[in-house]
């Protein structure tokens, strides 16, 4: 119970852990035959490691770390296309800082910047819009990256640029959506999942009904969760109780922030600006149907793929993963990060080889940062 003392309310944490232990025992889950619960969101992965939740819960519970870290699932070919755009002398390339160190096959954006490309780290696409206003002679490209939590921000920025007639602003769209990879994982015959902890802030935008198929078509429980450690424990307990009771439902533990039907303004902006691509490549998971978004033709003037002829797939496709990198197997829960031959050797947060080591939300970076004795115990 070492870590439980760090909780804001240690007594509440212990009570939840006791209940989790009771239900885990009641459903007969053991170390040899554990229940496998996937936390979809990278923020949850980070919190699980930070608070050692994986070690506080009984051995009969196994956390499988989901694909919910947009930096981690970004294919190398797309990083190469970013570098290509950034190296265009007309371009000021703007990006969230998280994307700077993702390895490309030639170089990362950080290396491209060191080599002289005009790459600026911004906090918000609003910053990119402002840079475009202040630099009318340059082309400002914003690297649109992320799940449904960030997608509304770029949609609203594109609408703002269109309303202002800001012609030197465009978005290199790499937005992806949460439900399709979950379906792909559930369809994977090698994957065995017993339930899900659903993302909190993504659900704040899309609501809880996009997950209905998980319960209805696959018979698995999912509980949308907040980010506090107590939220996570409560949500894990709710998943286990569904399993115990033979229920498969979409439950909302984070109703104080997540409305059932999401945020209407965000959803309207996303629908106005974006449409699904037929398919999109995910690092480690391959091409997944309708899992990525592209800018609708009505906003083609703000689409960097159109403006600079990059397209999707115009660059070299299927760039192989670096030698010995096992990000794909980790991403699909087949192996734990420490089982990768490069973990902590050829691949560290300072010098990442694979994408899962880049972001604090990546499973490998979380293992590395909080691992220590835990990593040895796996």
């Amino acid at each position, binding site marked *: 119970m070492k870590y439980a003392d760090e909780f804001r309310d240690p007594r509440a944490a212990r009570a939840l852990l006791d209940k989790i232990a009771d239900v885990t025992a009641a459903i007969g889950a053991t170390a040899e035959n554990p229940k496998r619960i996937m936390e979809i969101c990278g*923020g949850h992965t980070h919190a699980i490691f930070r608070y050692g939740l994986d070690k506080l819960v009984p051995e009969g519970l196994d956390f499988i770390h989901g694909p919910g870290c947009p*930096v981690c699932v970004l294919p190398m070919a797309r990083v190469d296309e970013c570098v290509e755009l950034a190296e265009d002398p007309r371009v000021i390339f703007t990006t969230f800082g998280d994307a700077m160190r993702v390895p490309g096959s030639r170089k990362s954006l950080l290396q491209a910047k060191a080599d002289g490309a005009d790459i600026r780290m911004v906090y918000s696409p*609003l910053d990119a819009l402002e840079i475009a206003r202040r630099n009318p002679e340059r082309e400002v490209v914003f690297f649109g990256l992320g799940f449904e939590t960030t997608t509304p*921000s770029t949609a609203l920025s594109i609408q703002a640029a269109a309303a202002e007639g800001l012609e030197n602003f465009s978005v290199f769209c790499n937005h992806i959506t949460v439900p399709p990879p979950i379906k792909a994982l559930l369809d994977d015959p090698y994957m065995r999942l017993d339930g899900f902890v659903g993302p909190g*802030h993504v659900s704040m935008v899309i609501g809880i009904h996009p997950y209905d198929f998980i319960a209805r078509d696959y018979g698995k429980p999912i509980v949308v969760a907040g980010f506090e450690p107590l939220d996570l424990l409560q949500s894990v307990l709710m998943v286990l109780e569904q399993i115990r009771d033979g229920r498969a439902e979409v439950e909302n533990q984070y109703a*104080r922030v997540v409305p059932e039907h999401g945020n209407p303004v965000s959803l309207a902006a996303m629908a106005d600006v974006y449409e699904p691509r037929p398919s999109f490549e995910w690092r480690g998971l391959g091409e997944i149907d309708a899992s990525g978004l592209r800018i609708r033709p009505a906003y083609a003037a703000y689409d960097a793929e159109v403006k600079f002829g990059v397209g999707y797939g115009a660059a070299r496709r299927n760039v192989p993963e670096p030698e010995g990198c096992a990000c794909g197997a980790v991403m699909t829960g087949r192996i734990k990060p420490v089982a990768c031959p490069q973990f902590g050797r050829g691949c560290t947060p300072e010098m990442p080889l694979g994408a899962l080591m880049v972001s*604090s939300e990546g499973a490998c970076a979380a293992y590395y940062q909080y691992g220590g004795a835990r990593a040895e115990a796996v």
Partner: protein
Amino acid sequence: MCLGIPGQIVAVTDAARMMAMAEVSGVRRAVNVACIAQGPLEDLVGHWALIHVGFAMAVIDEDEAAKTLEALRGLGEAQETLEAMAAGDAALEGQI
């Protein structure tokens, strides 16, 4: 990048562009409030919101804001966001 941070709306700065000033952990930052506006923007002043890459995405109460901020601090995410905001300000000036 995927987690919002709580901020308090302190003033409306550009109603036409749906922009307001928010205070996030003592740092002031212009944010877009289109996603939480349900009436006159002035009504938002004093309220807390979850702010995600410069966009207020949900109105939350003060207690929730405090708890969320504490959780984000525990993860190092609060500091990371504040640094990203500072980097964004510097990028506007072409400094980095």
